[in-house]
């Protein structure tokens, strides 16, 4: 099932994925299995989100990311000044 989340952060994430890999992602899309992202692709996406939203995602965060929704949650918690679960 596909969840529709209407928010800017999510839309931007999907747009960045579309731009680099020509794929339309959903919150449930898994980076490896569905989007065929390797580590470098994933790190590149994280880097673009960091620059756009002014946050710093750590390597510990990276180890928790399986889906697009995970990435959005981590970045959101960081923009809210909270500490993302690592």
């Amino acid at each position: 099932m596909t969840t529709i989340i209407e928010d800017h952060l999510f839309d931007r994430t999907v747009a960045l994925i579309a731009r680099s890999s020509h794929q339309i992602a959903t919150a449930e899309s898994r980076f490896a299995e569905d989007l065929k992202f390797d580590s470098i692709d994933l790190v590149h996406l994280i880097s673009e989100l960091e620059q756009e939203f002014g946050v710093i995602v750590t390597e510990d965060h990276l180890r928790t990311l399986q889906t697009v929704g995970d990435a959005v949650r981590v970045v959101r918690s960081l923009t809210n000044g909270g500490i993302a679960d690592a």
Partner: protein
Amino acid sequence: MSLARLTIIEALERAAHIAPTHGYTFCSESGDRFFTFPEMAANAARYAAALKRCGLRRGDRVALVLPDTTEFVHCFLGCMHAGLVPVPMYPPLRAGQLGYYLDHARHILARAAASMLITTSQIRSVLGSLVDGQLRSIVTVASLGADDRTCEREQVSLSDPAFLQFTSGSTARPKGVQLTYGNLAAQSKCIRDGIRLTEEDTGLAWLPLYHDMGLIGFVLAPLYTLTSVVFVQPFQFLKQPAEWLRRMSKHRGTVSFSPNFGYGLCTSRVGTKELESLDLSAWRIAGCGAEPIQRNTLDAFAEKFAPAGFRKNAFVHAYGMAENTLGISFSPWGSEPGYGDFDYDALSIGKVAKDATDGAKSITLANCGRAFEGHEIAIFDGHGNPRGDRLAGQIAVRGPSVMEGYYRDPGATAAVMHGDWLLTGDQGFVIDGELFVCGRDKELIIVAGRNYHPADIEWIAAEVPRIRRGRVIAFGVTSVGDDGSSSERVVICAESKTRADERDALADAVKARVLDQLGLKVSEVVLLQRASLPRTSSGKLQRTKTRERYLAGELELAQPDESRLTLMRHFLQSQWGFLRGWLRTRPRLPSSRA
């Protein structure tokens, strides 16, 4: 005393004594920390004392899974101070199926007979299942309890084991290269002489420290040459390749090394505005090694960063392997490294490496220079006899950097040692004493500086339903472009009796599985009719023969419904084409489908 007679900790103490203001800077996104050599020596003694309080005894193996470079260096040197044998291991990079990682880790820990594993609290939570039998505990750096208490340095000799570097064996049979303090001292001298590394230099590394290029080249060798080093976290580099160059600029870095792909990432990802703020004029050694060197990549880098003061003659081609501690040869420093264009078809084993002529398909190979002082390079034919100039064969090296052997694995050691010669498994030839590497261990697949063993890829592919273990073969194929550049593609051949309309989905599932577990993109999955992969008389699958048949187009494909497939491809390509134009993407590597 000759530098080549010092152990690592003796070299560190000497550096603390005669270069007390030099040291290592560890950069991170939360700020930089600088440790002088005296502080590094004191930290090694503090960590050593903490390790000893854990009940570890001289010679015990201690596994390190530490993504943070600061923690890694302190623990690594602490182990050596205490006479322990550190075993660096790579950390799990991302979530998802950890099965493959844990399996690999378990095999390494068993082979190393490690007593303890040191890691972070986050990684510890996923590694917990590894504690059994031999491995007494998994502890976090914080819980080691390093405080102000120190201990005396354990006396070790040059013939004692210094650390184990796990490399290139398959998961089921990892091979731990055992290096002695003598190996490390000899190799440090090679590096010093090869690039004239001095205390005037500033080294800069973003390389992971569980890899020999980062660990030996930038953590250990600079202790002998009193060279200050700046460490950028590998993750920071991967996120922003420009960070490497920013730091080179900021710290006036003079020496840095990277596999070929690092230079390529900078060329494609660093923007014009960023470029204007860089000053790379101090950079005098830009080493390139650990994977095949591509002239195009380095030329493009040099051209792009020339306005920032980068000089092409800073490039140094490096060839090496962990079994020889690190480096086997460097191209001469201070002059632009050379290349040769050779006739591609003539360049197979047993044939003479001919210079390319007009019209013939050619391959550009990097000149990797001469053997280091005290070391020799030879080319052997298939019977172990030395070959002459321009004759391709297996590259072998001997000298004080060659390992003692694989740890507790006499069988694997015997397979690579020919008397005192280390057989590298790589193919190459020599012209006037200068080495050209033209191929590798036929089975090893190297992508982005990382080695993959086909057995691991095959194992993972066979976990996909309808792919059966023992009926899968993986190999690498090098394609040579019109411009002489080469690239590596990974191909998997599998026997399967899947229905025609399910083949694309099955091939995609295999690609996804390998990508998820190994982070490796497979270019092609070839599904074959049953019993069509070549076997030995005992029924074992043959990789080399499969690869040859694949290249010759002789494999019996499980016939797909061609007309429908072609139509689908046209449809997909036209859609992708539309999206590409519409989204105005920047140039990028094609996805695994392409």
